[in-house]
């Protein structure tokens, strides 16, 4: 039962949630689930606590009082369909868990009737034995076992649990026998049983090891197949699609080139990009900007980036300026390739946008041309950076952008 409700803990909120009666994941009145959410503990703990308190009757009283005085949780998740969908399977009451608690309560009651109190050591040995058995049975649950086996840490934990389970069962059984004064009689039987068990273990162990190995191999194969399927799907979705488009547009070389470049970029980023946060650091952001401009204007842009850092306001402005510079180069330079180089240094970030195209006379640009003055020079100035444009007719153009870095907290 531990496992069944392990994933029922309310989503970790930043502050303590208000005490409400839960609708999601309730078993009876939602008191225990709500309280657990409020306290930030597993509902199972609260439920067991209620059960223990109920021995003296207090638990029941508290439960009833809470049931009447605590409001039910508002249906505030109504407007969040995603969260609802995710929680869909947790809706309503989990009958099997309810049955487990009822069974537990009945069992406890039966034990008390049988042994007449909490202090009879016999009771405790029975409890030990049962606890150990439960742990061992849990190990046998395939889903749980898989979870434990996936990491080495988990494996160690699994072994520890199994060890604890075996220990508890042994203590429980032997203790029970000792207190029943049956141990003397049972010794011969025990020896026999242990010998038999050892023999069986010897016979079965290799077979079990083989099974485990086989299962590991199977799992690896499964993962490999999944990867292969993903690759196939990706190639099908993007590459084949593009190839079809290219065949259809064969008479338009510009479009063919554009399609090929777009696909190349997509494939490259899929194959080689380290899974960095695509939008939050300079290097991928610069590459994305270049890809957009390239797609719009059809001139290949080669981006090289050294170092990386998070994008702040100033760097955001810098990226927009770089974009403007790339657009200008694409439109006016008349060249077949543009180089972009970004470098993140400890104190500043530099971006160079360079073409070997027509170039122009900087002084001859009319004041009202917003492109260069407003979008590049002005924007960099406003954000505390600087821009320099080096160009002359026939010599190509290089826009140099420089933005100081704000020290990270």
């Amino acid at each position, binding site marked *: 039962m531990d496992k069944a409700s392990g994933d029922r803990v309310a989503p970790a909120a930043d502050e303590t949630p208000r005490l409400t009666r839960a609708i999601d994941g309730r078993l009876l009145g939602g008191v225990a689930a709500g309280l657990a959410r409020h306290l930030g503990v597993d509902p199972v703990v609260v439920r067991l606590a209620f059960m223990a308190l109920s021995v003296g009757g207090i638990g029941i009283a508290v439960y009833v009082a809470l049931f009447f005085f605590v409001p039910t949780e508002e249906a505030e998740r109504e407007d969040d369909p995603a969260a609802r969908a995710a929680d869909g399977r947790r809706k309503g009451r989990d009958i099997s868990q309810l049955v487990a608690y009822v069974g537990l309560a009945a069992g406890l009651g039966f034990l008390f009737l049988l042994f007449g109190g909490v202090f009879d050591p016999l009771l405790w040995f029975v409890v030990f034995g049962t606890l150990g058995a439960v742990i061992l049975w849990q190990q046998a649950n395939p889903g749980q076992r898989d979870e434990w086996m996936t990491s080495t840490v988990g494996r160690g934990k699994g072994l520890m649990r199994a060890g604890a389970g075996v220990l508890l069962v042994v203590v429980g059984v032997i203790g029970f026998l000792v207190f029943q004064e049956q141990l003397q009689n049972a010794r011969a039987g025990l020896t026999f049983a242990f010998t038999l068990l050892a023999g069986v273990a010897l016979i079965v162990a290799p077979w079990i090891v083989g099974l485990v190995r086989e299962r590991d191999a199977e799992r690896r194969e499964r993962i490999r197949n999944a990867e292969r399927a993903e690759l196939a799907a990706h190639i099908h979705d993007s590459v084949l699609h593009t190839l079809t488009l290219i065949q259809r547009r064969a008479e338009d070389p510009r479009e063919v080139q554009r399609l090929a470049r777009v696909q190349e970029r997509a494939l*490259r980023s899929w*194959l*080689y990009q380290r899974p960095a946060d695509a939008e939050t650091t300079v290097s991928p952001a610069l590459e994305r900007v270049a890809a957009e401009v390239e797609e719009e204007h059809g001139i*290949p842009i*080669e981006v*090289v*980036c*050294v*170092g990386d850092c998070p994008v702040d306001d100033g760097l955001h402005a810098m990226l927009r300026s770089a974009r403007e510079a790339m657009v200008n180069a694409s439109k006016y330079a008349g060249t077949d390739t543009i*180089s972009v*180089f970004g*470098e993140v240094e400890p104190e500043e970030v530099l971006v*160079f946008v*360079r073409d*070997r195209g027509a170039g122009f006379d900087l002084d001859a640009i009319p004041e009202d041309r917003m492109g260069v003055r407003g979008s590049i020079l002005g924007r960099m100035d406003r954000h505390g950076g600087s821009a320099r444009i080096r160009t002359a007719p026939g010599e190509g153009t*290089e826009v140099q952008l420089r933005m100081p870095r704000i020290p990270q907290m």
Partner: protein
Amino acid sequence: MGRVRGVGDDSSTTFSDGGGVPRVVIVDDHRLFRSGVRGELGDAVDVVGEAGDVDSAVQVIERAQPDLVLLDVHLPGGGGVEVLRRVLARNPQIRFLALSVSDAAEDVIGVVRGGARGYVTKTISGRELADAIVRVADGDAVFSPRLAGFVLDAFSATDAPPVDPELDRLTQREREVLRHIARGYAYKEVAKELFISVKTVETHVSSVLRKLQLSNRHELSRWATARRLV
């Protein structure tokens, strides 16, 4: 189509001796790409052999004894690095220029550490490729902007103190040169920009290449071993 001369019929003069165009072997597993490169290079080089996998590449190269090998990074049978290892062991005078579509740092760094004297991407134009071939055949190093970027990246991370300061650090001038190459400057333009001669630029780049091949910097080893190269 370029010319393929009979194997070994002109081995008396080599390019380094001033005997005309460099003799080149093209190693790439895509036949279409090989013939494309050969067509683009035209008369600028003399293609004396082709190969499509590691074993045949080693054979062809040892037989033809070219000035330079155009080497694809990804090859069936162990990759370009395997060709470098086997050929350079017996023929250290043969020069390699790596050519690849790959953008992965470990590929680029790996093949350069394996002994290639340069790295260019397959999108390079025919004219630029011919320039690069002549340069490498002459004994210089050729860095594409991307390789320059990777090298700057690898040498800039200053987390660990260098084991060997001479090999593990770039000089200010070398960094300056690499930065310009990364910005898309040709050697001639770099020279003009930094008020130095083209020869000096070449010296700096060759020195960076040497550091790249010999340094044990953590980043370099990591990139190289990521694919169990070197």
